[in-house]
């Protein structure tokens, strides 16, 4: 199986390393920045292509690790060429795009696998497994936290900082936990969110709080932020059910903590949480996708799941904008 990688940034490099753990071959690399693609291709023994169109005839699977605003066109091009697709999260910026992408892949009969990597983090996967098995009864209240510093903060021109290209923090980052909340507790009926960026335009960081109400009656609190001093990055989950409680991380901090921007280091690009594991979650994810592509597994996350997570994020953004609680299905474009 020949893999063609689009994008040689942090995620592209991470996926390339993960593909090395599978029998698949990284055959081609396309990238916006020449230098990055060359280095990555040289390492993997892959060919550098100037465009996706030039690479398509030479690969079986296209792995899209580009900025979000490029996903839709690249997925449509790969589907038209009959190639299976792996696409980084968030799937797209709009529901119009996610619908077109899913329709194109269905019509072409190709996989569209969305890299919602949190589903492959062992602590998140283990908690979901316990909940699905009924270990803690019916889920009532869930709390999810994902906060770090601003990605690519040395580069104000980065696509991360352009909501038209990234969808902003509430889509780019919080989509992880919106997807996880839905995986855990089912469909979301209503979203209420508050976002500090429009309220404090002078704030250096970006931060939002959202409350989800699921059709099951469960409620979920989601905290997301690019607001911490470098290099602090924290994720947390807490799931309270009628017959038990799951907490991560186990409580182990001091009664107060003060983390100031003034003390921060300066040479970090984007935080990828590090944890000492025999296999990193990105590799687990890519190996799973390899198994799906070779007919050995059903996908843990479908294109529909990827689209539903985007829809919750867009509803949260709409709620923060209007000050009203929003039903995700109201977001159609």
């Amino acid at each position, binding site marked *: 199986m020949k893999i063609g990688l689009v994008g040689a940034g942090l995620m592209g490099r991470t996926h390339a390393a993960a593909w090395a753990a599978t029998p698949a071959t990284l055959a081609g690399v396309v990238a916006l920045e020449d230098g990055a693609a060359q280095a990555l291709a040289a390492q993997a023994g892959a060919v550098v292509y100037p465009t996706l169109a030039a690479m398509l005839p030479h690969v079986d699977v296209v792995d899209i690790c580009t900025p979000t605003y490029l996903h839709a066109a690249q997925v449509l091009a790969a589907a038209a060429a009959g190639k299976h697709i792996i696409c980084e999260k968030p799937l797209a910026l709009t529901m119009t795009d996610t619908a077109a992408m899913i329709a194109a892949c269905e019509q072409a009969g190709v996989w569209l696998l969305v890299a919602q990597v949190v589903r492959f983090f062992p602590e998140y996967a283990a908690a979901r497994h316990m909940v699905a098995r009924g270990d803690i009864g*019916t*889920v*009532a*209240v869930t*709390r999810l*936290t994902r*906060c770090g510093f601003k990605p690519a903060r040395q580069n104000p021109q980065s696509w991360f900082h352009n909501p038209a290209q990234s969808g902003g923090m509430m889509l780019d980052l919080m989509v992880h936990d919106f997807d996880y909340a839905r995986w855990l507790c089912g469909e979301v009926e*209503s979203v*209420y969110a*508050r976002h*500090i960026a429009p*309220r*404090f335009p002078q*704030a*250096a*960081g970006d*931060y939002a*709080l959202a*409350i989800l*109400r699921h059709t099951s*009656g*469960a*409620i*979920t*609190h989601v*905290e997301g*932020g690019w*607001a*911490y*001093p470098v290099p*602090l990055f924290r994720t947390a989950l*807490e799931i*309270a*059910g*009628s017959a*038990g*409680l799951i907490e991560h991380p186990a*409580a182990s*901090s*001091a*009664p*107060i*903590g*003060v*983390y*100031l*921007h*003034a003390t921060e280091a300066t040479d970090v690009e984007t935080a990828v949480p590090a944890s000492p594991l025999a296999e990193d979650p990105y590799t687990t994810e890519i190996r799973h996708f390899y198994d799906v592509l070779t007919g050995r597994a059903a996908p843990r996350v479908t294109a529909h799941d990827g689209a539903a997570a985007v829809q919750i994020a867009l509803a949260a953004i709409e709620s923060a904008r209007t*000050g*009203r*609680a929003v039903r995700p299905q109201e977001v159609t474009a």
Partner: protein
Amino acid sequence: MKIGILSLAHLHAEAYIDNVRAVPGVELMGLADEDPARAEHFARQSGTPHFASYAHLLAARPDAVLVCSENARHRPLVEQAAAAGVHVLCEKPLATRVEDARAMVAACQQAGVTLMTAFPMRFSTPLLEIKKLLDAGHLGQVYACNSTNQGECPAHLRAWFVDPELAGGGALTDHIVHLADVLRWYLHSEVTEVYATANRILYGAEVTVETGGLVLLTFASGAIASIDCSWSKPPYYPTWGGLKLDLITEKGLVTVDAFKQVLTVYRQQQQRPAWAYWGSDANQAMIDEFVAAIRAQRPPAVTGEDGLRAVEIVAAAYRSVHSGQPEKL
């Protein structure tokens, strides 16, 4: 100074018995309770005189009383005490309805007696440490807060805690007020809008009040703050619950955990770890402040108005649960 306790319905009254006795120059003059057996039990246990009725206790001329009745029964006792010219520390929440809280504040104002709301978190040493940093300007503007005051379902402690009439509600009534008050104190700003959602999945078959709740407050300053008030710590958790907040500020992140100063204790008899708190006693500092304010004839650090503001926030939260939309204050 002589202090009496009106009702021991709230379990905090037990702690206050020792707290009052620990204040130099203060005498715990007696207890009264609607339930004569309960009054007698605590009187015997603590070696304190007990009175046949609230009126009898007030007639014995205490300088001040602690009102620890069921939430919905605070108002008549506070009004009786005010009419007798006695200073009052009232258990939280001040009342179950905004009109009751307002009447209590007015009654004490008219009688010229102190009304303090029992918000011990204002006296928690970790919280005070951060209050100092905030007020000194070291953290800059506060943008957002993510806070939790989760606990176990208190039904097994006192049945009235889950009685919709006597308690006024469930988790929203029980656990919004502490953090709502702390946030008003930290931010020097009032709440303008409240969104809340609640459910009754935990203990769904056992109680009729809400047991899970999430609240998102908007402040006049522009700051946003969420409060998780759920009774989501199970009875087999290492402790009763806790109170934590993370503040996102101009200068960085601040985390506070009011009940983190604990020993982890593993006992053969218990078969599960327990957290034994060794931090400073916020209840003691609160009672000390009540006495000090009365002696100095100054308003206490936390007033009846503060209690009223918190009751208004809880009332707005219930309106939001019913409308599904944020409610203005």
